[in-house]
């Protein structure tokens, strides 16, 4: 299968992001997951921050983020992320994290502090969080929702049948749907979002079923993207989708009622997140009026 080509282009803005995140000591998922869009995003002065360290307690078999025993939380991290948002001059930021099954609240309190710190220092910024499942703990989820993110994302990652193969044993297809459904129940104005990675061996019908399930959970924004095997230790790639196949799935997704769909081989949850938020908001407002 032909691999995707990524143009490696390091400009001054890219170097500025390198310098900033290193100086502040904050992690990014752009680096942690070897994101193929890093040159485009950092070159445009945008980064996606990964809080609570760069070591994940889970072992999902598609993900390149380091796994193992995580570091203690940095109590200054919320302020550091807020400062990074200020220095970069962002008006929209996506914040994600590693999973922290070792913490009693899964890190929900730290998420809430980070959202509040970012908004306090940057009053006009919109904040998207891409959260773990908190093992289905609704109280933890409530803590995050009440901190006031503008978009709450949680990824279902794959279809029901392949979930045990693709994701860590503590993750679950229904558990992830529940996170998304409960988040919407906690705040009906909250825009919710989820991603499906394609290429693990799922059928077209299974992808449609997953999209249907996400819509039933009230999800507004859908991201469809291509799995790219990050190392020989990770799950093999079963299929590279064509752009036509992405267009076809995108069309089905809109028919199912998503407010906005990002469907592209190199799309990732936070890729063009601001544009997705703006478009989804327009359509949701239009729907209400």
């Amino acid at each position, binding site marked *: 299968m032909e*691999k995707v*080509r990524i143009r*490696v282009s390091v400009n001054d803005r890219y170097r500025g992001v*390198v310098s900033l995140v290193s100086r502040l000591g904050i992690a990014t998922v752009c*680096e942690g997951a*070897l994101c193929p869009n890093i040159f485009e995003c950092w070159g445009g002065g945008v980064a996606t921050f990964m809080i609570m360290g*760069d070591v994940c307690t889970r072992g999902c078999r598609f993900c*390149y983020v380091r796994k193992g025993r995580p570091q203690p939380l940095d109590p200054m991290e919320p302020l550091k992320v807020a400062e990074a948002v200020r220095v970069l001059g962002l008006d929209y930021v996506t914040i994600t994290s590693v999973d922290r099954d070792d913490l009693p609240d899964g890190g929900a309190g730290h998420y809430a502090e980070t959202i509040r710190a970012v908004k306090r220092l940057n009053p006009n910024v919109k904040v998207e969080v891409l959260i773990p499942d908190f093992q289905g703990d609704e109280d933890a989820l409530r803590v995050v929702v009440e901190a006031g993110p503008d978009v709450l994302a949680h990824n279902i990652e794959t279809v029901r049948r392949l979930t045990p193969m693709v994701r860590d044993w503590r993750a679950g297809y229904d558990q992830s749907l529940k996170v998304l459904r409960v988040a919407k129940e906690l705040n009906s104005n909250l825009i919710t979002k989820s991603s499906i990675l394609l290429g693990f061996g799922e059928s077209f019908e299974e992808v449609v079923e997953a999209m249907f399930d996400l819509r039933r959970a009230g999800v507004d924004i859908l991201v469809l993207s291509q799995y790219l095997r990050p190392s020989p230790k990770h799950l093999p790639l079963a299929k590279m989708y064509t752009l036509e196949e992405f267009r076809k799935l995108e069309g089905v997704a809109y028919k199912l009622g998503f407010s906005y769909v990002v469907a592209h081989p190199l799309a990732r949850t936070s890729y063009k997140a601001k544009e997705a938020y703006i478009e989804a908001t327009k359509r949701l407002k239009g729907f209400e009026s």
Partner: protein
Amino acid sequence: MPSKAIKVPEELWPRRGGWRGRVVSVLKKPGDRVSRGEPLVEVEIEKAILVIESPYDGVVSEVLVSQGSPVELGSELVRVDVVGEG
């Protein structure tokens, strides 16, 4: 004209090193003119093919790798005599 080495950039996923790649194609030969932003070498890693661009305008003076060469962060790929700098 100053001669500059063009490398696999150290800033690539800066704090997540450790990956290795191999050269799949060298797109220029000694004597070829190159422009800033023009692809020079393609490096295959597990996830993708990285297209390494020239950061300079100039003339290729030396090609330091060939198809199949193993490379990592910081590996020198090509030398370019840079035009308009010095």
